[in-house]
């Protein structure tokens, strides 16, 4: 008798051993080697909770510094043309970069 393996279950087990950690850095310009002005962490392993306002010093000096430490850049905010009449309006932090690490879990 042939033993049937449920590939879906096996695949799920493999996938669930990896978790995503996300770090968001806000830089002072669109250059990845410019300084960090804001930051956030979200840890998919559940091991670390990062409360708002918990850190006064950034984890890296620049975005490039994060890459050198193994963080993979997965998204960067685009440069957007200024809307006529609203050229001087300021709102959200402008230079947002999402990084990830995939880590073994469990």
């Amino acid at each position, binding site marked *: 008798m042939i033993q049937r393996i449920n590939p879906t279950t096996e695949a799920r087990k493999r996938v669930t051993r990896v978790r995503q950690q996300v770090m968001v850095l806000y830089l002072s310009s669109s250059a990845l080697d410019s300084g960090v002005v804001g930051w956030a962490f979200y840890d998919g392993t559940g091991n670390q909770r990062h*409360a*708002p*306002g*918990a850190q006064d010093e950034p984890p890296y000096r620049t975005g490039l510094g994060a890459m050198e430490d193994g963080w993979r850049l997965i998204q960067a905010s685009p440069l957007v043309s200024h809307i006529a009449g609203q050229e001087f309006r*300021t709102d*959200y*932090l402008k230079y947002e970069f999402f990084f990830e690490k995939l880590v073994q879990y469990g």
Partner: protein
Amino acid sequence: MDKAATGDATKLLNSTQMAEFAARGFVRMDGVVPDDLNRAFLDELGAGEASEPAGQYRLARQSGAVPAVPAGTPLANAYQPDTTVGKIVRLPEVSGAIQSLVGTSPLLDHHFLHMTFPPRFMPGGRATAQHTHQDSTIDPRSAFDVQIMYFPQRVTASMGGTRFIPGSHFRIVSEAAVARYQNIRGQQRVICEPGTMLFMHMGIWHGGGMNESDAVRYMFKIRLAPTERQVRLWDDSDLGNDHFEQRPIFWTGDEARDPIHAILTRPEPWFEADTGRLEYINRIRFWRYLLGDDRFDADYWMTRIENEFL
């Protein structure tokens, strides 16, 4: 508040304090409320008597220490002079700051007693922090409301304190849309002596800090709206005669500089390279609004882009 409600001894803000408010979005007064009023405020609330948050809020509401007041009520009618809160808003420094920012007849938008509970009150025994946000909703006005934050007790570092981002008040955002920003360089937490007050522009980004102590943290917030154009409501007698003059920029010498120009062009640690300059422009426009005079400029930021020929 009118003089009938405040007494004669209002102590208006000076021009330096107003410029700090224009540039950074807040004026801080440490220990401005005397201890007897701080103690009375906490005692009347029944502070520390309940064993869980809902009970503490119920006690506070039932105490009447903070009355329920309809939105839009004149401040002069919101708190009777013989009550603790009534005495606090009539203190010379407090009524003077109110008058300097929102005039003699402001309206009460709302008030709220914020209580931040320590871990033993929280599910799972874990303290939480409020996400960063801007109060109310998108608000692109030039006129501004002021939010008074009153801390009746000593706030230690472990109690968390209200977190806020100096200089964020001109950013036109939609309430908790900024919640993703966990930390921003230059963020401050209000760690203070009893009786400390902050007078904040309505646009300041802020959030309640995580209380990891054993004590409940109290903060009473009052939002006030002006009923008049907010022009030179402070004591502007200290403005220099050269306040409208320009100085050398970029290639500079040892020339003296008007301190208000310096305040309006001082960056915050979180300013981006390009939008930091837009924040200078926001401040200069706001200072023009407060002066009621569009001739003002600092470091030529406005004059340069206004040199148009049509």
